[in-house]
């Protein structure tokens, strides 16, 4: 499993990188959506975990480019904060994101969501 972590900040990215590697995932880390698109385009990721607050392309444009321009059905999980921008989450889900988690989350929660979505994706 190759997990692309986008825009989560260095501290959370480092922590999730560590936990995901312990669960057998390979992690690709990018700080903005433009860089994420180039990694997806190069086929370097199986699933995207992204902040809803992005540098580069904004969330809906970003997801739209993945779904419509790249014709990719890659699973997408959004990361938001409590009292975060729920409208951004809803717009992201409408644009094609599959799931979301609210920070601070338990690492195993994100790992299980990733595994579940990838299982569904592979068996679709």
């Amino acid at each position, binding site marked *: 499993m190759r997990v692309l972590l986008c825009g*989560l*900040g*260095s*501290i*959370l990215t*480092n*922590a*999730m990188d*560590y*936990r995901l590697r*312990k669960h057998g995932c390979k992690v690709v880390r990018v700080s903005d959506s433009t860089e994420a698109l180039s990694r997806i385009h190069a086929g370097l990721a199986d699933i995207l975990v992204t902040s809803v*607050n992005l*540098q580069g392309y904004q969330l809906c444009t970003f997801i739209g480019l993945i779904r419509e321009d790249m014709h990719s059905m890659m699973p997408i999980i959004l990361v938001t*904060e409590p*009292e975060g921008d729920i409208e951004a989450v809803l717009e992201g889900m409408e644009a094609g994101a599959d799931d979301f988690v609210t*920070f*601070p989350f*338990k*690492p195993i929660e994100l790992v299980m969501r990733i595994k579940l979505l990838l299982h569904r994706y592979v068996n679709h």
Partner: protein
Amino acid sequence: MSVTTYNYIQLDYLETMTDGDADMMQTMLEMLITEIPEEIEKMKVCVAAKDWQELFQVSHKMKTTFSFVGNEAIINTNKTLEHCSRHEESLDEIPGLVEQIEELAIKIVEELQQVQ
């Protein structure tokens, strides 16, 4: 056995994320000790330049970082700062909020250095 108590940090979430791994904990502590002062400096630059949207971006990014150190006062002050900068409201309060965050951050970093 002596137990060190801290007044400004609460590292339960960091311990959860690092799964009790001492090396990973050390790496994360070093990242926090480096990143927090750097980001506070960015906040001060944004205030001087009255660049409220960039300040919002820095403040938003720090929400996650402050959650890792578990200090409710800095989390809440930063939340107010994020709201004010994002919506460009109560702009006269923003320098004071950044000052409060800096004062707390200094104490947080001092305690993080004691954990190392």
